[in-house]
């Protein structure tokens, strides 16, 4: 069965009132990388996942989950 990494970045970003560009700046990547992670096109490294979680003030396991 296919597995994919689902995330709640858009939801958490919205709660903090951040744009993709603002989140990208906090994490130190470009907006398009945040966009591709958010849309599930790109699976981030553990380092980037942790940075995203830190920037959004949530534990990484709350931000990402495996969808089966």
């Amino acid at each position, binding site marked *: 069965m296919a597995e994919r990494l689902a995330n709640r970045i858009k939801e958490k970003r919205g709660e903090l009132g951040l744009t993709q*560009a603002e989140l*990208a*700046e*906090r994490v*130190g*990547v*470009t*907006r*398009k*990388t945040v*966009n*591709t*992670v*958010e*849309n599930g*096109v*790109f699976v*981030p*490294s553990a380092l*980037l996942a942790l940075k995203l979680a830190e920037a959004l003030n949530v534990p990484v396991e709350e931000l990402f989950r495996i969808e089966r």
Partner: protein
Amino acid sequence: MAEQSDFEAAERLSARRTRMLPMLAILLITQQGAFFASSGGDRTVDHVKVSAWLVMSAVILLALLTGGGWIYPKRVRDLANDEGTQVNRLKALRTGFVASMVACLALYFLSFFEQIQVREAIHIVTTAGLAAALVSFAFMERRAARDG
């Protein structure tokens, strides 16, 4: 945290690169056409054409390997070549490698029926690989930049 201008510069570099990639592919293929139009020529202009293609191919290969944007500060280049872009670049290089291999196999097959000059074969293999990598990179970068 980096200066705001670094992020803006990185976004601009990234957008500019995405716009330039297909144009570079077209230019490379056009130069290839010019080479075959004057194939075998030994005039100065023919040498200039071949040299121009050689230099351009080397620059494109270097740009694909490093991410380009050499005139920008390192911090801006690092931002523009972030994790997502690096993955796209590696996938594009893989596509370019496959295209080169397909061109090699096709030329090998063709060589049974027609004599092919070594220089012509090198041109075709190199151009196929680089053009495929450029187009592939452009496609993935455009898709990444698109709002989802």
